[in-house]
């Protein structure tokens, strides 16, 4: 019962606006520290990979962005479901705020994967299972954002795109499976294992720092974006008056 009231309180826009505003530095500062330390560790401190040489250092931006793009899609779908079922505007705002972040990291993952693939595979693009499903994920983001922008009315944009996000999230495992299945049937699998078996700590620790840093950065960005969405949605609420100093 206590958690329920807490949930309701948090989902009230003014309350969320204040809490999220206080939380931003608590996410942003550790995110910045972790990303800087992780990148330094990855670029300078970690030894070169015995197979891939220095090229493996791309993993420190490639893998966290892959993770973030998937996490964003899941977050979006969960927020969309919450918004549809309990009609919570804040959840819709979160879904809307998450899509561009996820799409940008999906794109980053694709391009860094391609840059990594060039020296490793000898071509810029290979229809490898992971790259292909990442590409489709990027297309799903594009569809979601296109549908949102096609509606003028915010309420309908919220609910229509929420339905699409749910259909998409049911499809993601199917797409993933079908792409791997298709890939494994192609001429002898040439998939290069990017993450070798066990990583030594000097390589692993910076990678984990990057993962944590990117995730915290998402939290900070989502807070800023949802706050902006809340302001745009709360047309004439009295609490907005507190914002203007005079």
């Amino acid at each position, binding site marked *: 019962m206590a958690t329920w009231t807490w949930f309701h309180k948090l989902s009230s826009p003014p309350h969320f606006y204040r809490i999220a505003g206080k939380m931003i530095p608590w996410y942003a500062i550790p995110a910045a520290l972790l990303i800087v330390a992780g990148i330094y560790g990855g670029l300078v401190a970690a030894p070169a990979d015995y197979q891939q040489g220095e090229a493996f250092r791309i993993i420190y931006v490639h893998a966290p962005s892959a993770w973030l793009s998937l996490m964003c899609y899941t977050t979006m779908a969960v927020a969309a479901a919450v918004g*549809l079922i309990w009609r919570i505007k804040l959840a819709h705002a979160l879904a809307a705020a998450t899509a561009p972040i996820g799409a940008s990291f999906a794109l980053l993952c694709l391009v860094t994967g391609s840059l990594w693939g060039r020296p490793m595979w000898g071509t810029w693009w290979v229809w490898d299972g992971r790259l292909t499903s990442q590409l489709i994920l990027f297309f799903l983001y594009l569809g979601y954002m*296109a549908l949102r922008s096609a509606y003028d009315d915010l309420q309908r944009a919220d609910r229509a795109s929420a339905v699409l996000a749910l259909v998409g999230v049911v499809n993601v495992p*199917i797409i993933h499976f079908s792409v791997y299945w298709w890939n494994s049937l192609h001429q002898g699998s040439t998939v290069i294992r990017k993450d070798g078996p066990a990583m030594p700590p000097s390589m692993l620790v910076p990678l984990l720092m990057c993962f944590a840093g990117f995730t915290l950065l998402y939290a900070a960005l989502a807070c800023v974006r949802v706050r902006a969405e809340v302001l745009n949605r709360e047309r004439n609420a009295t609490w907005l008056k507190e914002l203007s100093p005079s």
Partner: protein
Amino acid sequence: MNPVTTSLGRAAWLVLERDLRLALRRWEQITHPVAFFLMIASLFPLALSPEPSQLRNISPCVVWVGALLSSLLALESLYRSDQDDGTLEQMTLSGQPLPVLLFAKTVAHWLLSGIPLVVAAPLVGLWMGAPERTFGVMMLSVALGTGVLSFLGSVAAALTLGTRRGSVLLSLLVLPLALPVLIFGAKATDLAMRGESPAGAVLLLAAVLILTVTLAPWASAAAVRISLE
């Protein structure tokens, strides 16, 4: 007839029958996607080469890409006219469960857009020089695949009802979701052509169809209600 006493099955049947009858009055709804399918297929030899061995190798790809794009084209007509004349709104107000009515509507759409493509697929196969023994698998996979596309498309078409620029948006929404269908369908035909068993791919396609048929009508119903608000 008093609508309150109309049973659910009867209501669904009425929707199905009505759509079929309307389509038979306007043949172009059926013939245009098929003509589009044949035209797409004729592009490949022209763009690639008239070399039979090359064409034979890509025949599953041609059949499947063509079928996918043609069924996308047919989706436009799924709700549009019913929205314009208010039929769709009447359906939401009829008191009958909307998912069931939309299910019937989508089945009608599949019969009108999917079956002609199933019939046209072997013709395209002949053009591309695919062996005759693959036609059975080809038709079966196209039948299952267009079923999935109709149901997925019914959700996307309902979502884009309330927007102005519907058609490009519709393709953007459906294509990424339709990729598993393309992969399984093309692979089934390809396996049959190589003389291997296509059972796995066909069963996967059937599984996707069952899942889509079960879930899509609910999403379509939600989307129609949002679009008609």
